[in-house]
């Protein structure tokens, strides 16, 4: 622990809050969602690709010109509909944009007429994240068609780096991935994938002329040097990027996988520290409901495991906290040995990520007032896509999900220390079967065997 503190303090000068969770797990993730997490991650990859990542320090693209046009120009629609000439319209736009002190006069040369300009803006707006949210204009993003269309979260006044929405989660994710066995293979795949889609680059550079980057700053911190989970994450991502699916579908699948593994890692680390498990197999498990219209034992078990997992993170902090010597307490930025400060910070900055990063895949409040694990269609599709090479028996698929990720759908894997109704789990398994069928991912053969199929690999 002491060497870790020294190592951590070398890069980060955090004095106001306790630093136990950082040295145990990573620095840091706050309330980042899976989209921000993966966008931030790709920004690090872009820095690596363009030689802007050296000695653990990265600098990212600002691209504020295009962002000002897309996200900070509410008058655009009005001007477009005004009855005046192309030149007058361009003049008005350039005047408004110019108030920031930057020159936008290049726009007239890039576009033949105002309609073309407007259409091009529309293409990027249609493929933007957080467009309809009330986030500041420097925290809205274009879909990552390739490295060119990536840029970093900035402060809307200084246009410098700040960590409001990119809270370093993506950097931590990069550290995880870069410590995996097959990182080099994955890196090459990403480089290949994110240098395609050239038409979007061309369109992008009609809007964006400046080439500024943020001042280099050190990447987040990750305590663990190696882990099977990092390896498994990269294996799954490699599978995904090798699949024969449309290029632009990959990002959304990747973000779900990233979000899940981030939490899976956090929980597994917590298990190692706290040594408390709810499963007879002593591993991290997720009891997952396939949407049911009424409450049953599956939902009950799922809620219980959800709460247990969330609490496990706190238990881990507690067990490490107990080991700290009274005289070393200052090293952790603490005045006296009091767990309350640590707990408060974890509840504010660490534990919400369990909910936030699993939201599009597993965590849901649907039909209840507290969270539980409920599988989303998109995540189900993702799991089939990465785990099935051609086809697999339904039961083998269930076994695989349990062994690899600890997912419990069926009574076959109900190894909990507390007992629950088997028949409710049999029904849950049946619902999963029906759901897979409804998504076109399952073929029921007339000989009674049911196969989960990866439709994109059938004919290969």
């Amino acid at each position, binding site marked *: 622990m002491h060497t870790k503190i020294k190592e951590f303090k070398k890069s980060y000068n955090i004095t106001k809050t306790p630093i136990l969770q950082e040295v145990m797990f990573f620095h840091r993730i706050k309330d980042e969602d899976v989209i921000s997490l993966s966008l931030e991650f790709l920004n690090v990859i872009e820095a690596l690709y363009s030689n802007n990542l050296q000695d653990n320090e990265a600098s990212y693209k600002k691209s504020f010109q295009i962002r000002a046009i897309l996200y900070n120009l509410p008058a655009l629609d009005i001007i477009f509909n005004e009855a005046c000439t192309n030149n007058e319209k361009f003049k008005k736009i350039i005047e408004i944009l110019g108030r920031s002190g930057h020159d936008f006069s290049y726009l007239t040369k890039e576009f033949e007429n105002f309609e*073309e300009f407007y*259409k*091009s803006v529309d*293409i990027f707006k*249609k*493929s933007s994240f957080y467009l309809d949210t009330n986030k500041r204009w420097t925290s809205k993003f274009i*879909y990552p068609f390739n490295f060119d269309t990536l840029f970093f979260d900035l402060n809307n006044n200084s246009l410098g780096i700040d960590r409001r929405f990119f809270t370093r989660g993506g950097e931590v994710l990069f550290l995880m991935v870069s410590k995996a066995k097959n990182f080099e293979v994955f890196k090459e795949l990403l480089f290949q994938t994110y240098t*395609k*889609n*050239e*038409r979007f680059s*061309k*369109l992008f550079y*009609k809007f964006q002329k400046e080439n500024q980057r943020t001042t280099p700053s050190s990447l987040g911190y990750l305590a663990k040097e190696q882990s099977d989970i990092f390896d498994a994450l990269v294996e799954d991502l490699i599978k995904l990027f090798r699949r*024969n*699916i*449309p*290029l*632009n*579908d990959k*990002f*959304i699948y990747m973000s779900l996988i990233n979000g899940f593994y981030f939490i899976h890692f956090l929980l597994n680390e917590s298990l190692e520290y706290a040594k408390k498990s709810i499963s007879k197999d002593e591993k991290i498990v997720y009891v997952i409901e396939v949407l049911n219209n009424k409450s049953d034992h599956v939902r009950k078990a799922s809620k219980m495991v959800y709460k247990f997992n969330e609490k496990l993170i706190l238990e881990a902090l507690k067990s490490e906290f107990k080991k700290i010597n009274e005289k070393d307490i200052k090293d952790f930025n603490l005045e006296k040995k009091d767990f309350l400060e640590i707990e408060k910070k974890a509840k504010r900055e660490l534990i919400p990520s369990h909910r936030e990063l699993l939201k599009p895949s597993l965590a849901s409040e649907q039909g209840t007032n507290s969270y539980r694990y409920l599988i989303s269609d998109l995540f189900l599709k993702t799991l089939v896509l990465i785990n099935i090479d051609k086809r697999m028996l339904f039961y083998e698929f269930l076994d695989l999900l349990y062994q690899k990720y600890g997912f419990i759908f069926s009574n076959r894997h109900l190894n909990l220390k507390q007992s629950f109704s088997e028949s409710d789990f049999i*029904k849950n398994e049946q619902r999963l079967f029906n759901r897979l*069928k*409804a*998504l*076109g991912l399952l073929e029921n053969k007339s000989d009674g065997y049911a196969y989960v199929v990866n*439709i*994109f690999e059938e*004919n290969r």
Partner: protein
Amino acid sequence: MIIANMILGYEKGIFTNCEEASKSQNQIKSAFYNNIFADNLPLSQKEKFKNFLELNIGKESSNIIDEELLYNEIEVEEFFFNKEKFKKIKEKFFEDNENFEELNEYLIYLRRYLFFAHSKFSKDLVIYKYLDEFIEIVDKEQNNKRVLKKLLKALNRIFLGELTDEDSKLYLGSSFTKSFAKISDEIIEEVSIRDIKFKFSSSKIDKEFIKVYLIINDEKLLIDLHMYEFLRRVSEGILPLSFSTEYYEKVLNFKSKLLSKREHNEDLDDFELFLVENFKVHINYLSV
């Protein structure tokens, strides 16, 4: 098991003795025709009756049949049917617009009765409205342009997420960011109807086992009876979600496959935006 349930089934389960049965005479809830479709059984046991249930008999209908049932006196020679009661329910419904559920129960029953007792109605009462067309395709094993056009219209509607009548070529649409989005932003490729064909996997044993595929750019979409019904209904303007999320997803997956294939062949260099006006697709190029 089906026959046993037909005879013994009633509202909440099955009769176990005669006394019980005699008490509940003249109730459509214990009628033969409802028991065939396992109305009396819990969901978990219905699975065994799946093949019957898929036909959706009793819930499908046509205007002619329903008008006949509602406005005319019909003769039903059935032990379970109480003519007077049905009349009262109808009257009450027409006057006060009440008890729709009760009436509906009777309608479902009567449609089922008609299905079995009067074969001339049976075609309107099953879910497969386009059964004859499909049989013709399979029998003749040839590419009927009229049928192809109808399927293309349906595919265009699903691929673009717009109500269009275009049926002379296939518009392969996509959203900028997701191939499986329900509404498309641009058109990636146009495929002429001449390049779209049916393929019949010949089975020497029996015509029943023949498989029909729609071939577009070497990718194939299996057209079974259900898929054919689904696409035909879409081409007539209905998206029948009740029986077909599975088939809707299958079509979207097929689209993803086509897009992925197109992507492999060459890089795109411009944008084909589109607009649907008066059911026609207007393309709006933007080159970069």
